[in-house]
């Protein structure tokens, strides 16, 4: 009797072992060049390849629709018709609504109407230079999110204004793709649009997706690792695009109020949020807001978590990330930001 029990247990164990070693689900991958960056899409499960192919098509479509540089895009149409109402697509409406809300909440730190300024500075082009103060003054007149009139499914910019969805489009795209893939039954995928990462579910083996946070100072190193499931992680940093003139570095994240690169004391802002579009907009907004105001924003509105790396070597991590973020290396000292900080006093807790 005893012997039989042992045999039964052994067989059961064997079966269990075999079951857990079952074939790994197939990984499907697609690489897309669009939206001025390289996009990697990875998904698991049946029908993943077909779903990803559809996702690639959608990306090309969105690229054509939203690019501020393409002549035939909807954005270009809006910009050319400044002064009059232009009917717009749902895609653009969604982004404008989200953008305007962040603009209001951040007191203008985020503003899609900065295109005149961006073009003036010329980031990313051969002619990138520091514009004269008068030129900046002149351009600033046309930078004001308050003058973007959104009514029903039409939008009207004031004369001379122009908008760019560059700071929110990738996040919007990743959010749309995420919903589309989930609708196709995909429960495990990870999307990388430039530095915008969005994870669907967890990895097929049940573990969370591991997303590294690039060190803003040394590109090949990692400043920390996130463990995410059904979350988006978007980072904004001056180091992504900049030029040097007369020994000074000018980065591409402009402060819509001053017309100059934002000087909030931050070199990298990462937002973790379940909505990719929100994460994208907030990463730019908080970078411009700077350390104190960014923390204030988080305390006032919440709905996301953040990692702020300061220019004096500190890494501020909002406390919601305690279990899902681990610092790497010794370049920064980690401090946790807690919810209850009193009005101006920011309460920090030292991390490991």
């Amino acid at each position, binding site marked *: 009797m005893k012997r039989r029990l042992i045999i039964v247990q052994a067989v059961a164990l064997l079966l269990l072992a075999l079951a857990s070693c079952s074939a790994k689900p197939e990984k499907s991958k697609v690489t897309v060049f669009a939206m001025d960056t390289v996009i990697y899409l990875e998904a698991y499960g049946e029908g993943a390849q077909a779903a990803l192919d559809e996702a690639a098509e959608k990306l090309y479509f969105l690229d054509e629709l939203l690019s501020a540089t393409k002549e035939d895009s909807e954005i270009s149409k809006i910009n050319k018709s400044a002064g009059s109402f232009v009917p717009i697509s749902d895609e653009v409406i969604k982004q404008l609504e989200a953008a305007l809300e962040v603009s209001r909440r951040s007191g203008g730190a985020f503003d899609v109407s900065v295109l005149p300024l961006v073009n003036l500075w010329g980031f990313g082009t051969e002619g990138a230079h520091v514009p004269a103060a008068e030129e900046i003054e002149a351009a600033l007149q046309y930078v004001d999110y308050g003058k973007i009139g959104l009514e029903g499914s039409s939008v009207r910019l004031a004369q001379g204004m122009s908008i760019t969805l560059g700071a929110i489009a990738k996040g919007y795209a990743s959010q749309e793709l995420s919903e589309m893939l989930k609708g196709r039954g995909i429960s495990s995928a990870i999307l*990388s649009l430039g530095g915008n990462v969005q994870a669907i579910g967890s990895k097929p083996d049940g573990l969370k997706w*591991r997303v590294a946070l*690039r060190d803003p100072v040394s590109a*090949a190193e990692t400043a920390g690792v996130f463990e995410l499931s059904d979350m988006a992680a978007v980072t904004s940093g001056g180091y*992504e695009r900049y030029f040097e003139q007369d020994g000074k570095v000018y980065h591409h994240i402009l402060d819509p109020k001053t017309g100059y690169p934002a000087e909030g004391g931050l070199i990298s802002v*990462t937002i973790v949020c379940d909505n990719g579009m929100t994460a994208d907009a907030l990463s730019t907004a908080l970078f411009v807001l700077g350390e104190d105001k960014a923390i204030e924003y988080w305390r006032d509105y919440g709905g996301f978590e953040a990692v702020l790396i300061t220019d004096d070597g500190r890494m501020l991590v909002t406390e919601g990330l305690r279990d899902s973020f681990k610092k790497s290396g010794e370049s920064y000292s980690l401090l946790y930001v807690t919810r209850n900080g009193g009005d101006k006093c920011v309460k920090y807790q030292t991390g490991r």
Partner: protein
Amino acid sequence: MRKISNRALIIIFLGLLAVSAVWILIAANIEQDELTAEIYVDGRLMYTLDLSKVTEEYTIELPHNTVLVGEGEISMLSADCPDQLCVRQGVIRNGIQPIICLPNRVEIRIVKDSGIDAVTGGRS
């Protein structure tokens, strides 16, 4: 007990020798696309590096060792341990064999896909 002949033993050991040699040759030359290196000191993960993104060599200073990070490869540049085995090991390019400095409890290993799934921050 059955007696095994000397010849049989020789064959077995030579076979083992051959298998090991082949294993080493293969292991040393496998190329990996996703090259994430992890540096552990005292069992604690101290650094995670993406070797495939390195364009210029640079070094990382640890308390008792110096690590040289190169394009798609990593090695122990110097160490204060008596045997210097970690330094003499040279460069590793894949995750099959780690570089270990036993006296200083340092381990450099290249991790495969299961390390990092995506990177946020900057253009890819």
